[in-house]
């Protein structure tokens, strides 16, 4: 036994990779035996670390503990054991033994089977607290010898190299790990390739039987999350590996479907026939934004209101939310998302499965119709897309054995959990993190209204920090005025200016806090229009820019400019200047065909303007976003 451990240590070091800002792990793994007999990922004993984000190599499958035989797995054993596991993705009790992952002897691998991710996800998310210290073969981190994962891990390596150094100090075994020779590495890769081929062969089976997760288990999570929300990220991270192993079919499915392009006439026609909301095309459409919906604003409202009692397929709660979107009553990413989810809950509660249909299929279709209705009312935000994906996933993965009422209750509780964990608790965690970044005497600049930033400012004020706030605002929404009023009422000292004055005021600012509608996986921040300008000016004045964004808003999409995807607001709002009767040059702009008014809603902030992103997973640099996205996506799908 001892001998084996030593061998393992040489190649497969336990590796705790941490990203972002964290305290050194107070409880490093020093207990070898517990590692080799596959330890539970982040078992409670070493879960005390306060680090917000930790990237951890894939854990040995927890299940292996139940199959001690596997821990003997040695030498070149990606074979029978692991292969037999390939099909065993489902975590149903009847499932065959799990593969062991991360055992490397003499450069040979036992390649764990990809379905593992379901397990690790479940495990990770059910751990009570943050700091997972997982052990695994470092070599396994570059699975399959494929280029893409390797690149990713290289990236991470850069980011965390400092962290690693720290860990190396705490973990004596570390230095040895780097001692893979070239030939060993090659052997390793080869074995991985072989494993991949094997996995491919069996790939389809597990994808079909993807494991649903019992509601009971899932519902444990909220309480645990409270301890430290950092648990989630690491759990997500655990799956990085799993996601690399997606069989081709799944991988394709993961690529988001291309968005509707509104310059495609035939598709627009088709969509119109289906549409609930009667839209009239806007006058003087902006040529550059033909691909986005440009409709008259406000004209649909009376029509829809009159149809309120006729719309059979639409649930009244959903309908109400749709009208609120349309009228602009409900704004703000979180508020819109919560309202939508709650409307879905209502609708699901009232849902009755029609005869000869299955709940999971029919309800999914129903939800899709709701979503398309809401999308007509106002294009959905990216965060809402993520939430919808979650709901649909929960429905699709519902166990068939559940009765209808149970299924409905479980979906509703899942949605509740999503709201409380991903939004409300996430905000609390962000506030907690951000408060540590505010010092006495700071001048904090914020732009528009972000509910998280507002919470941060109020919290910091409550805990007695002495600081001043600069609220920057812009037309046409002038959201900042509402924030300003609330802050001043609470007794914060505020300075108000408009976005053009930001260069003037930036001299006195020490930090910039901005909200975001979404953070894309190339690190760009998709947020209310003007955010990019503020971030740009701040970075030109060397003022740190902190983006506050819940991780459920992260998205794997990438975007380089603000034109390819955006949302257009009401052009009339641009021509009319609120409170300024003297500015009325464009009152009759609709009659001038050379004139277009553009009311852009969002823009894209390049990642180099962003110093730090504050999420519920901790404080990360923008380059770490893709990591969290991968993790998080799995986390969301499987929790």
């Amino acid at each position, binding site marked *: 036994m001892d001998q084996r451990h030593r061998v393992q240590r040489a190649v497969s070091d336990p590796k705790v990779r941490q990203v972002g800002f964290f305290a050194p792990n107070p409880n490093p793994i020093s207990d070898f035996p517990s590692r080799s007999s596959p330890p539970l990922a982040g078992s409670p004993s070493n879960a005390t670390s306060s680090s917000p984000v930790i990237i951890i190599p894939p854990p040995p499958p927890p299940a292996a503990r139940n199959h001690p035989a596997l821990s003997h797995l040695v030498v070149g054993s990606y074979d029978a054991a692991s292969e037999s596991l390939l099909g065993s993705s489902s975590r149903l009790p009847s499932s065959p033994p799990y593969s062991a992952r991360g055992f490397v002897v003499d450069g040979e691998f036992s390649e764990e089977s990809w379905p593992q991710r379901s397990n690790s996800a479940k495990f990770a998310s059910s751990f009570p607290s943050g700091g997972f210290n997982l052990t695994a073969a470092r070599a396994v981190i570059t699975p399959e010898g494929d280029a893409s994962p390797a690149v990713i891990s290289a990236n991470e390596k850069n980011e965390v190299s400092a962290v690693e150094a720290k860990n190396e100090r705490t973990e004596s075994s570390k230095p040895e790990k780097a001692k893979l020779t070239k030939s060993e590495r090659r052997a390793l890769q080869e074995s991985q390739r072989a494993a991949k081929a094997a996995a491919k062969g069996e790939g389809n089976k597990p994808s079909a039987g993807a494991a649903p997760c019992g509601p009971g288990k899932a519902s444990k999570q909220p309480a645990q999350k409270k301890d430290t929300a950092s648990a989630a990220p690491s759990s997500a991270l655990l799956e990085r590996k799993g996601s690399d192993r997606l069989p081709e079919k799944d991988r394709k499915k993961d690529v988001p479907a291309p968005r509707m392009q509104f310059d495609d006439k035939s598709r627009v026609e088709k969509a119109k026939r289906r549409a609930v909301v009667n839209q009239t095309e806007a006058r003087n459409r902006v040529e550059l934004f033909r691909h986005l919906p440009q409709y008259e604003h406000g004209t649909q409202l009376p029509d829809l209101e009159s149809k309120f009692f006729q719309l059979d397929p639409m649930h009244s709660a959903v309908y109400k939310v749709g009208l609120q979107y349309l009228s602009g009553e409900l704004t703000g990413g979180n508020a819109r998302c919560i309202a939508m989810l709650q409307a879905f809950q209502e609708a699901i509660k009232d849902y009755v499965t029609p005869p000869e249909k299955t709940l999971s299929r029919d309800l999914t279709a129903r939800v899709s119709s709701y979503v398309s209705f809401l999308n007509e009312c106002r294009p959905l935000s990216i965060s809402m897309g993520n939430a919808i994906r979650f709901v649909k996933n929960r429905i699709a993965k519902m166990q068939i054995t559940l009765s209808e009422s149970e299924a409905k209750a479980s979906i509703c509780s899942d949605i509740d959990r999503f709201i409380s964990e991903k939004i409300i608790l996430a905000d609390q965690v962000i506030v907690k993190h951000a408060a540590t970044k505010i010092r006495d005497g700071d001048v904090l600049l914020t732009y528009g209204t972000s509910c998280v930033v507002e919470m941060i400012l109020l919290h910091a004020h409550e805990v007695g920090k002495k600081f001043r706030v600069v609220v920057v605002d812009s037309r046409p929404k002038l959201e900042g005025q509402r924030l300003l009023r609330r802050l001043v009422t609470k007794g914060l000292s505020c300075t*108000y*200016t408009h976005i053009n004055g930001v260069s003037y005021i930036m001299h006195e600012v020490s930090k910039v806090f901005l909200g975001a509608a979404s953070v894309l996986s190339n690190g760009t921040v998709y947020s209310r229009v003007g955010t990019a300008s503020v971030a740009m000016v701040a970075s030109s004045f060397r003022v740190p820019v902190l983006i506050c964004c819940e991780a459920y808003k992260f998205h794997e999409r990438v975007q380089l400019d*603000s034109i390819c995807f955006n949302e257009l607001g009401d052009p009339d709002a*641009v021509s009319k200047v609120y409170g300024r009767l003297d500015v009325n040059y464009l009152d009759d702009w609709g009659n001038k065909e*050379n*004139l277009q008014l*553009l009311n852009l809603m969002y823009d894209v902030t390049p990642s180099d303007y962003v110093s730090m992103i504050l999420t519920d997973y901790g404080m990360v640099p923008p380059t770490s976003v893709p990591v969290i996205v991968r993790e998080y996506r799995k986390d969301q799908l499987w929790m």
Partner: protein
Amino acid sequence: MPDVQSLVNEFILKLKKRKIEGSQATARQTAVLLRSVISQQRIPYTSQAAALIDAVRAVGEQLIAANPIELAVGNIVRRVLHIIREEDLSLTTAAIEGLNVSSVSDDDGDTDKDDTPGLSAAALAAAARSTLRPPSLQTLLEDLPDSSAIPHTSSSGGDSDGKSKSADKSTRSRKLKHDVIEAINELIQDIDTCHDQIAEQAVEHIHHNEVILTLGSSKTVLEFLCAAKEKKRSFRVFVAEGAPRYQGHLLAKELVARGLQTTLITDSAVFAMISRVNMVIVGAHVVMANGGVIAPVGLNMVALAAQRHAVPFVVLAGCHKLCPLYPHNPEVLLNELRSPSELLDFGEFSDCMDFGYGTGTPLLHVVNPTFDYVPPKLVSLFITETGGHDPSYMYRLIADYYSADDLVLQRKVASVK
């Protein structure tokens, strides 16, 4: 000359109340006022130039003090001073030449008169520089009064300068004033026509299917764009509205009236749109000697965005906007805060504006600056009447228009600047 003084006072009042909008209008009115000051000024027989300079300087100090932010006033005062010096110089040199040719006749004055209007300010300056420049340094060293320096230096040209002076003193006294007024008329004309001269160059800079972004409104920009349109260039214009004055709405309206494809965007969308823009063309409030620009608020943001996307940032500026001073902390010292009412409705926020909460200071401040400073590194090109120039060349261009002796008009003002 009580009526001149009343004119001056009236103008000062207008400046103080910020009743005059735009540097072109200010420049023009300043020039007109100074013209009348000069025409009413009694001229002694000796050192007429010095008398004129003193008179203009006295008025100029008052004007500048009335609105130290409006640098166009100071520019015009300096220009007028420079004109007086140049005219005086050219008269003396002409007189000397006349002597040298030994034909002291009356028509010498006539030829000179015909000559002077024909010469452009730049050409005059170029001619004068060779003689003026070194002596002005000399005056500094020898601590001589300016007025005496000029005749003194010009005497280096000819030996018998004392004789000539006494000979045509009477003609010269009338002629100097006359020439100066002529030159100021020219200056006023220059100011009036600077838009057209700048606009003439539009075709060289704007090409087919270009997308041009501008912020706020500037008459120069309007004329520039329209000139390109008249030359059958088809292009599109993005106009940022330019809060808090929203002059962009006005510009958009006028551009549309002239048949240009115009898109009005909010100021916040500048960064989003600039990736599709080929050129940013804006007006300026003042161009400083280092090539920095005092511009309507918001332009620093636009310039940064343009730099980020490698979009040329072109500033149009008439010559009256060229200021010979170097800026120090211009964002604050050369700025002006306007009324908060443009941003916040007092009615809505009246309850937040009380001096409460114990400390005695209000919790709510509103900052509404008028200008932005765009550093020279963000400017790609200046277009003036004389053509396009790099920011680093501006100091040289400016040296043509002003005399080094006039840079510091007033000790007090100078310390502010």
